[in-house]
């Protein structure tokens, strides 16, 4: 069992699972080659969690594009993607609390960012501790969902979300309406870039649970 904690999110991983809790580099931050370019001015970035039963490659998309192809029939991949906290009170995120118990019936082969034969996905939008999230889970095989989903639930049961620690700049009111930052559909994510990065005001560089730049 290993514990991962960063950006106000904690998760305990059973043997055979691995993961990463990260945040894309914000505007103006120094980045490494592995991170890619920082966000453009005026964009904010938030926490992303990837945990899986497969080796996670470097540089996968926010919704794990580049990793799902490697899922075997008994594998699973969990993505917890945070949207801008300003979206937390939007209707899409009205469900409260991280779903810790998924049902095999929550999964569908059509609920994938990119349809891959045999795989299935599930996604849940919710708010927790004043933060807005999408939980996106991919199974390597829809046919094995009854066997694999309990393993997913074991991991989800250990996941906790802490309240965002507002930075000084985040206390300032934003100039953009949060409604435009939330996804407008409940279909599977169709892009690996954060929807929040297009309309968020420059002052809303909220650092969930930490006040330092990206430090876990």
């Amino acid at each position, binding site marked *: 069992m290993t514990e991962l*904690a960063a950006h106000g999110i904690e998760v305990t991983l059973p*043997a055979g699972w*691995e993961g990463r809790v*990260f945040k894309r580099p914000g505007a103006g931050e120094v980045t490494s080659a*592995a991170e890619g370019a920082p966000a453009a001015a005026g964009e904010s970035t938030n926490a992303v969690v990837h945990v899986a039963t497969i*080796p996670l490659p470097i*540089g996968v998309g926010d919704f794990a594009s580049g990793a799902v192809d490697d899922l075997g029939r008994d594998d699973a991949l969990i993505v917890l993607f945070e949207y801008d906290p300003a979206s937390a009170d939007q209707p899409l995120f009205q469900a409260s609390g991280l779903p810790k118990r998924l049902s095999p019936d929550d999964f569908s082969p059509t609920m994938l960012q990119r349809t891959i034969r045999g795989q299935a996905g599930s996604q849940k939008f919710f708010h927790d501790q004043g933060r807005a999230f999408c939980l996106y889970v991919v199974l390597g095989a829809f046919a094995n969902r009854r066997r694999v989903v309990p393993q997913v639930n074991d991991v989800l049961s250990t996941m906790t979300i802490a309240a965002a620690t507002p930075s000084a700049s985040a206390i300032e009111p934003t100039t953009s309406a949060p409604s435009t930052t939330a996804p407008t559909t409940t279909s599977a994510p169709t*892009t690996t870039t954060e929807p929040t990065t297009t309309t968020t005001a420059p002052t809303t560089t909220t650092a969930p649970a930490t006040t330092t730049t990206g430090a*876990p």
Partner: protein
Amino acid sequence: MAVLVTLLAVVLALLALLVAGLLRSHAEILRALHQLGVDMDPASDGTGVTTAVGAPVVRSAQVPKRPSRTAADVVGTTPEHDAISIAVIGAKQLTLLAFLSSGCGSCHAFWDVFRDGGPVEVPGGARLVCVSKDPSEESVASIRRLAPLDIPTVMSSAAWAAYDVPVAPFFVLVDGASGDVIGEGAANEWGQVQSLLRTALDDAGLLDRKGNLRADRAGKPRADAQREARADRDLLAAGIKPGDPSLYSLPSAELPPTAESG
């Protein structure tokens, strides 16, 4: 007076003996470190120790298996300060942990190969993971600069302790299925590491008669891996790195027509 002179001579002789002993001990330590691939030469330019001309000197060394040691998952932070956990125990594939630092000259040779040498072929198809010490003991900026694009790099002093790493660079090969350390050693060239790994795999009975990983342990088909490696290489050669916006958008010629255009 004669007694005093004699006494001083004896003391001088004893001191000379002591200094000679210390110098010899120091030389033996340096020689041992050199054999393990650690260059303590202050005149070294920091670019590695493989520039000597002449007969090749094998500086790799297998460490006798230490039965008390067990494998452990690698948990730490990335050079970008993110939290990361690498599954080693229970992993379906072999894992090769490369314990490297930013300071040792020999390590730079490996950083260079892993970062700039194209796809790294690891015997047994093992997953390569670079492990440095914690940010409190390492230069994060240096590790960020040295870390390869496509190989996980974890900063974890706990992993160094768990695997009882005696020196850098040091390599540990773990069989995830059994959780056993099946090989470990020091080297200062990637070719030497590959040789050590093949020996370790053979000793562990994981190779078939042709020297390939046994079919029941093989992971992704080699053709897939080669195709991916070729695509990665071509993209990198074109200056397209992970996260490049062009990977996530259609070329303008393929964009759907707008209402105005039809």
